[in-house]
């Protein structure tokens, strides 16, 4: 980690400012403190009994809600998946437009540094428990963008990944198989990505900040 890089200027909308409210009061706003939750994520403990946790995990496995955020070319495989041809909905998988309503993040293909910043924000806004699927070779070892100046090569350096689906591109059938694999992992109680993220928060943040130089957001924006 090189620390001698200049810190970027804070964006205008994140600066402290004095505003007048509709009812005539004058208040000071510090967006980084007032608009975001700055406290670090915490580990979510398992249920008090194993049998209850097993029931929870079964229920979690049967409701996978994907965040509709296509980060790379792999997003094109999600259209046939969510339409009648392959129809992922019959497996209990559906897409949502906002991170607040979803618990599965499919990183679809290459991930540029610029997109990574948005991906981290979206991931942190998803409610626990949450899962990440890396789609395509690009998320595993960079794929055909292994020597690119602006795409990351290993997704698991920046986010905890539960399942990788290899291929360039993987077919929709491969995605369905990957989702079934993810369900098995969740039922076995091994999909602990969100807890892993909370436990190794500092390590993930250090990795993220090593590649994202204009870090103009809070460390944890929930």
């Amino acid at each position: 980690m090189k620390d001698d890089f200049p810190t970027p200027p804070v964006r205008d909308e994140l600066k402290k400012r004095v505003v007048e409210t509709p009812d005539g009061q004058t208040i000071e706003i510090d967006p980084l403190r007032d608009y975001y939750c700055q406290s670090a994520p915490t580990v979510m403990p398992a249920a008090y009994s194993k049998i209850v946790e097993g029931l929870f995990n079964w229920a979690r496995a049967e409701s996978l809600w994907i965040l509709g955020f296509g980060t790379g070319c792999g997003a094109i495989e999600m259209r046939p998946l969510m339409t009648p041809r392959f129809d992922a909905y019959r497996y209990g998988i559906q897409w949502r437009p906002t991170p607040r309503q979803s618990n599965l993040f499919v990183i679809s293909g290459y991930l540029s540094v610029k997109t990574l910043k948005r991906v981290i924000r979206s991931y942190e806004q998803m409610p626990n428990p949450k899962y990440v699927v890396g789609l395509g070779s690009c998320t595993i070892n960079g794929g055909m963008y292994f020597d690119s100046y602006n795409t990351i090569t290993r997704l698991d350096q920046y986010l905890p990944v539960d399942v990788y689906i290899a291929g360039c591109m993987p077919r929709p059938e491969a995605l369905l198989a990957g989702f079934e694999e993810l369900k098995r992992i969740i039922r076995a109680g091994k999909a602990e990505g969100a807890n892993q993220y909370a436990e190794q928060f500092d390590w993930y943040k250090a990795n993220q900040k090593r590649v994202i130089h204009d870090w103009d957001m809070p460390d944890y924006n929930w």
Partner: protein
Amino acid sequence: MRDLYDRLTMAFPLGELTEQRPDLAFVTVPREQLRSLLLHLRDQEGFTHLVLLTAVDWLEEGHFQLTYLMNNRRACRDLGVRVMLARDPASMESIHDLWPTAATYQRELREMFGIDFPGSPRVDEDFILEGWIRTPPYRRDFDTLKFSDEVFAPRPGRASSDPAEFMKQQLYPDKT
């Protein structure tokens, strides 16, 4: 294209004409003459559309080549005007007042090649890359593989092979 070239050489010190296709040709012009040539082409010769403005990094020769590709829609032909620049420090006069679209190209060139265009709107702001702090990535002395290995922590175990050799071994294993 030859007729146009003959007309232009009367007024401008142009280099050789490179005819790529009957409707596409390139000429080189000294940078002092560029602006007047572009104005002449736009106002007198009907090349009203700036198709693109791009750069080539001639690292060994130590200069940048800017290509202004112009289109004459009525005559259905394109003319590329090339300008050679010193590579370090690279700086060029802006033409955003001739074509407003040029400002976008100039921002891109500023970010990707580090060619400065003083006076061009928003030229010093980030364009595509956010917070880029190293050598501009399209310069040929920027080693992308080395950069990627340093910054992105590559997964060990990745191997690559020459496709021709690999297929030869797959298809004719006894002949190698």
